[in-house]
């Protein structure tokens, strides 16, 4: 092998004829090629398809005008469908399909089906063209002085390299800097824990053993109203669960005098520490809490530790106690940031 990438091909594909001529497979004439009646039939077929398409287009307009958007109709085994959506989709779809199918029949049956051969040419330019191009280019370079005037070239390149900086700097006001926002929530000592949807305060007796309650800080609706967005809700929501106190193996904090639970009622952040999905698939027998997004599983009876899945951190626990009126309140704020990990979290 003189050249490493030369194939040892002795028989070129296709060039099976000894004289090297290209011979295509025999052409088998179609019925429509020799039978004028078949051709006529094909013509009729195609024109019927085009006519059908026109009919469906008209049907679309009729369906659009006649069928109210709330009309429904039953489809056996497939439920009840919107009459308008189905009628519009089917008519419009078939109107398009029959144009396509008609054209295709036309092309397949009536247009010439003899294969033709075209030659390819090497994509590379001939050598002299390349040389000419280089010469022309060189002429341009010389003309400009780009190669010889070094200071011009360098200062231009420098200027152009710096030029995009404003385009990036101007993005600065896309948002505020994080500050300490990732580290805080609306939970402060004494904040009442209230039911998520209805906003009612909660007494421990309301939660039976094995029960779960989606809850939020009492102040959340007001914050949401003031800020006009859901930012606070995305961090503040918590879950209350209750288990027999002797089933609790460990907690993230608390002393005998100031326990983080209240008689078996535990409060955890509802935001998964993996990528932040709300997490609430609570299995009351195993005390496991499963995230429906990526199946991180936390054991709430054991400090909210991860027992399965991609989450790396325990679910933050909120210390709770009773207030003077006997409702559950936060004993303290969250002792660690809630939600997914981030660089500054540590």
């Amino acid at each position, binding site marked *: 092998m003189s050249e490493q990438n030369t194939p040892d091909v002795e028989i070129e594909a296709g060039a099976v004829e000894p004289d090297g001529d290209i011979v295509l497979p025999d052409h*088998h004439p*179609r019925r429509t090629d020799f039978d004028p009646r078949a051709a006529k039939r094909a013509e009729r077929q195609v024109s019927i398809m085009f006519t059908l398409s026109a009919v469906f287009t008209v049907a679309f307009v009729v369906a659009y005008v006649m069928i109210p958007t709330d009309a429904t109709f039953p489809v056996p085994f497939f439920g009840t469908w919107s009459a308008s*959506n189905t009628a519009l989709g089917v008519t419009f779809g078939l109107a398009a399909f029959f144009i396509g199918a008609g054209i295709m029949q036309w092309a397949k049956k009536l247009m010439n089906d003899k294969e033709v051969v075209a030659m390819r040419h090497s994509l590379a330019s001939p050598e002299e063209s390349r040389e000419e191009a280089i010469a022309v280019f060189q002429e341009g370079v010389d003309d400009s002085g780009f190669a010889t005037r070094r200071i011009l070239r360098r200062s231009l390149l420098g200027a152009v390299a710096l030029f995009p900086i404003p385009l990036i700097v101007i993005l600065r006001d896309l948002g505020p800097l994080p500050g300490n926002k990732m580290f805080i929530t609306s939970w402060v000592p004494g904040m009442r824990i209230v039911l998520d949807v209805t906003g009612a305060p909660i007494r421990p007796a309301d939660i039976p053993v094995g029960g779960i309650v989606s809850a939020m800080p009492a102040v959340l609706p007001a914050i949401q109203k003031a800020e006009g967005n859901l930012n606070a809700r995305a961090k503040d929501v918590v879950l209350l669960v209750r288990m027999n106190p002797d089933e609790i193996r460990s907690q993230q904090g608390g002393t005998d005098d100031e326990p983080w639970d209240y008689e078996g009622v535990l409060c955890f952040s509802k935001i998964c520490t993996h990528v932040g999905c709300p997490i609430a698939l*609570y299995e*009351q027998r195993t005390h496991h809490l499963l995230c429906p997004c990526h199946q991180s599983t936390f054991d709430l009876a054991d400090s909210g530790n991860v027992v399965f899945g991609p989450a790396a951190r325990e679910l933050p626990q909120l210390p709770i106690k009773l207030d003077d009126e006997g409702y559950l309140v936060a004993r303290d704020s969250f002792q660690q940031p809630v939600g997914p990990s981030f660089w500054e979290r540590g």
Partner: protein
Amino acid sequence: MRRRHRAAAPILVLLTLALIGVLYAAVGSAASAQASNEGATTNAELIKQGQQLFAEGCSSCHGLGAQGGPEAPTLVGVGSAAVDFQISTGRMPLAAPNAQAPQKKVIYTDEETAAIAAFVASLAPGPQIPTDEEINYEDADLVEGGELFRTNCSQCHNFTGAGGALSNGAYAPDLRDATPRQIYEAMLTGPENMPVFSNETLTPENKQAIIKYIQNMDEQASYGGWAIGSLGPVNEGAFIWIIGIGLLIGAAVWIGARVR
């Protein structure tokens, strides 16, 4: 409570018998069969019948006194709602121990179920089978039901109640074939791994609203056409690969095929 209950039973029997006698006379022979049937199932007899059924069908795992066994929990204090839920959905009696009791063909009649429920309820107070008024969701707030459903239920049971997976082979079942009574009982009693939603944190009105929302999801039209199981993007992806790409490749093959 329990003591008074027992003391009251004979009186209740007498009263019921008397009432039935009056009814019998009033309604006449046409209703006689039904009336005598009702007469036979007074509370005490119901409990007795239930005890017998329990001894035959349940006690091998749960124990004669429903005190529980190595493989089965105690039923003392679970209340009639839990029993009705487990039996009327076919979960009990269990065929074989599993990650979770599967739904099967219901083997007890409504009367037998009521009898076993009454027996278990007689052991200790617990959540009662909801009355017809309690599960009457006609006037419930559909919109609030939706919010409550999406906050408390959809995480396990999926956005249309089609069900979903839990850890280690457990699962949240499809809600669309459950009756309102069963849904109510499930929220009240927390069967298996399902947490309990007490009447304090989810009031009876809230529960009715949730039931109304589930019923509505089941009954409302699938506006866009076939719902493909209402399981979300996984099924949509399978649909577009099998049906969508399938049809397009079919068309491409037809276009490329030679005509004779």
